[in-house]
């Protein structure tokens, strides 16, 4: 049932439906809550070895490429800006803006993932070398997996945008992946700050 229909509906909601939240948004809400718990487990491991274990960060003889990661952070944040632009465009029936925004978002996300993989190749340590390496690859890899899932969603939205599936009246297919993409970016800002800066 569409959100606007829910607003004008009187009486109890349909079976298995919330009267206040659209089912698709609710599904994403529950998914993101479970994702926050997964990231929480990884951050617990990170703070455990640094605070409780008192381990040196990064491990002795290793260095994290802060500058490259910072540039990569800017790339990912830019992709959130273009995602927001795409959705605002479709809300005003600007299909060119939607298509350009979605395509740019996808390309920026793919660039982020490419740079991340390139960083793994050149960083000079592996997950089995030490606990710091395990946590580094665990946290950034977990986030990278989310970027991959996000890119898959963005690819589908982009194809649908070019086929003219969205309008100012029907854009939930852009809105929900947009929420997910911003969540992925928020998690990266936290991962970047804790892993590379602190």
């Amino acid at each position, binding site marked *: 049932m569409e959100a606007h229909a829910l607003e004008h509906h009187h009486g109890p909601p349909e079976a298995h439906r919330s009267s206040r939240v659209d089912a698709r948004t609710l599904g994403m809400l529950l998914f993101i809550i479970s994702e926050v718990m997964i990231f929480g487990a990884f951050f617990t491991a990170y703070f455990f070895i640094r605070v409780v274990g008192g381990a040196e960060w990064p491990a002795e003889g290793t260095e994290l490429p802060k500058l490259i990661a910072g540039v990569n952070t800017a790339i990912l944040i830019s992709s959130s800006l273009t995602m*927001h632009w795409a959705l605002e465009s479709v809300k005003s029936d600007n299909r060119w803006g939607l298509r350009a925004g979605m395509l740019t978002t996808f390309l920026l996300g793919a660039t982020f993932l490419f740079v991340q993989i390139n960083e793994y190749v050149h960083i000079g340590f592996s997950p089995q070398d030490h606990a710091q390496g395990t946590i580094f690859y665990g946290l950034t890899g977990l986030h990278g997996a989310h970027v991959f899932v996000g890119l898959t969603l963005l690819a589908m939205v982009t194809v649908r945008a070019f086929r003219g599936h969205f309008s100012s009246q029907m854009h939930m297919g852009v809105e929900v992946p947009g929420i997910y993409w911003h969540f992925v970016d928020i998690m990266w800002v936290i991962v970047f700050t804790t892993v590379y800066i602190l």
Partner: protein
Amino acid sequence: MINPLRSEREAFRVLVYVLAVAAFVIAVVVLIRAL
């Protein structure tokens, strides 16, 4: 009240807030290390 899971617009606003907090934390860390 902001609910980042209600709409993309609010999720984007939360991202901006998180960025502001992260920028502040990074500035403090850089400042402390420089002293």
